[in-house]
């Protein structure tokens, strides 16, 4: 319609044509609850399956021990860096356990624990952080994408994979994990928008642990909550207590099921707290107080599970000790494997850049080969026999 025609419409009093824009979705059902969803410590906890409680407890205790062991390995120089999830184990583990074998996990660099809970070998999960290779496993084997270091860039991958799976007729769901800081990235927006438009079977899990390295949430976003962002994309947002393993398992399972059944994506915000620093390279005392950290100790995910198991008489001291012993065995095994020096072949630098080496890479590989041969022939040189 031209401007002249519009004017004519006004003059003649003809009805205004309907706007091109029509609301597609009623926002109300998409909005998250005002308070994070909780099960442990409420009356609803009595309904929780005892086996699930026991399993979550054992896994979360193992996760805590894994975090402690990996952190110790950084101090011994065995790991270049380790972003600990101490305090966040419930979310990591409950999310991974909500997936079926055929589903895919898209973890960030902090989500080693989710990958291990999914069955990945604990040593393979650490190669990125040890520095011997970027990804120490075949992503297709466990259906775990490489741990992603750039922020939120793995989220569109999850959308694409889930979309492709649906096009092929497979009922596969992708779970994409990101931190609170990652929600400020452009890829977060693009991924959520694509997922909602395509109704892709994806679950986005934001673990809000309070800080993006040192920057608190209040400086990260002005949104009422990160879960509220969902409504802008036309998907439901859920707010859940990230330290409550049972609540996490329930909310994640619900979202995964909904996605699998064609209900589209969900954005879940898990409220949690990172008890350790961002990594061993970070000094958390510069941006938060001991009192703040202490306040979260009473809301520890292990404590919440232990209280519930004990209250219902599902575990005793011996049972708790058995779980701790099992975690200790896992840690000893991890320690033993990580204390072995990885055997690396420098010539691997040139494989897997392209399917077929370019002539440029062939020349460079020959150069390195010659350097290695010369090194091996020089007495006293590194790698030569003593």
């Amino acid at each position, binding site marked *: 319609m031209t401007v002249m025609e519009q004017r004519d419409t006004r003059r003649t009093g003809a009805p205004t044509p309907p706007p091109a824009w029509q609301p597609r979705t009623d926002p109300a059902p998409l909005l998250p609850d005002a308070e994070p969803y909780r099960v442990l410590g409420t009356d609803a906890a009595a309904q929780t399956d005892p086996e699930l409680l026991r399993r979550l407890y054992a896994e979360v205790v193992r996760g805590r021990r894994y975090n402690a062991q990996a952190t110790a390995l950084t101090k011994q120089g065995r790991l270049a860096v380790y972003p600990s999830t101490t305090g966040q184990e419930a979310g990591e583990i409950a999310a991974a356990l909500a997936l079926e074998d055929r589903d895919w996990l898209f973890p960030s660099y902090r989500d080693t624990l989710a990958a291990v809970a999914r069955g990945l070998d604990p040593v393979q999960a650490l190669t990125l952080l040890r520095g011997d*290779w*970027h*990804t120490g496993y*075949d*992503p*297709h084997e466990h259906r775990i*994408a*490489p741990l992603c270091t*750039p922020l939120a*860039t793995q*989220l*569109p*991958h*999850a*959308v*694409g*994979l*889930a*979309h*492709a*799976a649906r*096009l*092929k007729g497979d009922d596969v769901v*992708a779970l994409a994990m990101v931190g609170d800081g990652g929600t400020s990235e*452009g*890829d977060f927006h*693009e*991924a959520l*928008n*694509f997922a909602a*438009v395509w109704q892709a079977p994806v679950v986005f899990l934001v673990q809000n642990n309070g800080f993006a390295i040192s920057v608190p949430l209040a400086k990260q976003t002005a949104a009422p909550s990160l879960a509220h962002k969902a409504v802008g994309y036309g998907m439901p947002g859920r707010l859940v207590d990230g330290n409550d393993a049972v609540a996490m398992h329930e909310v994640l399972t619900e979202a995964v099921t909904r996605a699998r059944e064609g209900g589209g994506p969900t954005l879940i915000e898990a409220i949690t707290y990172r008890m350790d620093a961002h990594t061993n390279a970070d000094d958390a005392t510069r941006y938060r107080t001991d009192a703040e950290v202490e306040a979260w100790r009473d809301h520890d995910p292990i404590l919440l599970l232990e209280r519930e198991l004990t209250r219902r008489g599902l575990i005793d001291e011996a049972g708790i000790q058995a779980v701790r012993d099992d975690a200790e065995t896992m840690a000893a095994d991890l320690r033993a494997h990580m204390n072995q020096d990885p055997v690396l072949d420098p010539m*691997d630098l040139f*494989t*897997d*850049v*392209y*399917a077929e080496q*370019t*002539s*440029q890479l062939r020349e460079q590989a020959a150069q390195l080969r010659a350097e290695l041969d010369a090194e091996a022939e020089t007495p006293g040189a590194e790698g030569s026999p003593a």
Partner: protein
Amino acid sequence: MTTVAEKATAAKPATMAQALGRALRDSMAADPAVHVMGEDVGTLGGVFRVTDGLAKEFGEDRCTDTPLAEAGILGAAVGMAMYGLRPVVEMQFDAFAYPAFEQLISHVARMRNRTRGAMPLPITVRVPYGGGIGGVEHHSDSSEAYYMATPGLTVVTPATVADAYGLLRQSIASDDPVVFLEPKRLYWAKDSWNPEQPVDVEPIGTAVVRRPGTSATLITYGPSLPVCLEAAEAARGEGWDLEVVDLRSLVPFDDATVAASVRRTGRAVVVHESGGFGGPGGEIAARVTERCFHHLQAPVLRVAGFDIPYPPPMLERHHLPGVDRVLDAVARLQWDQ
């Protein structure tokens, strides 16, 4: 008198845009894993009509109009490729590809490498590039140097109708990610070409001599090829017999063909639209010098766009290397020594 059947298979003038569209169509028909996606590629058929008819023929699930978000388009393509599809994404215009750079550099280029070969990504990224069509700001960049500087990417650019078809088919069939640079101003360049019986073209990574000569080698690609061929014709009047090498593929780079030509002629000029400083010509000149130093009669010269942001369309003719600028460079090749 020709029969109807002969008429149907005869070579007729076809544009590069038609050949590209045909390559997409034939790739999709040959392999159900091939998916075309991008902004406007479906109903509209692409702003240059390269994808015209694909959504109708193959359905919207295989030729998909996406939300307007380049990082999202390429990022989703990564996940699709992880699940066994072969996405072909369109970036619509060169400068619109920049939001997708992080996906391209941090993930697409290195997924094979970071997973030690377990997760190759057969993605083709179609990027219409270069000037000469009177495009306004952000519609005429030559961004090949950025792509060339990223290990893991194959970078291809056709200059002929036959190459447009052949190289795009090869790119889509490649198990590696390919940045497929389409010279916008050649979209409507016509050549006799038979879509029913496309000729085989040399594989990716092979440069070809488009015009043999003995006096000097013009090394070029994409939109500058017709400029160089015209310059070579004009140079005959000056007594120069110029050889023209079309690189076709910037990565992998065909050192052998280029060096063989320069060793024959002893002189070389690199011609491209993108800026000279930090541009492809510097790399090419260095490689030629390293391999042909004792055969060279003159320094390797570059004829490039100026080192300026791409100019407004009313001034672009002063920026783009034309026949005269190429001939001026040839004249500077120390003929008297």
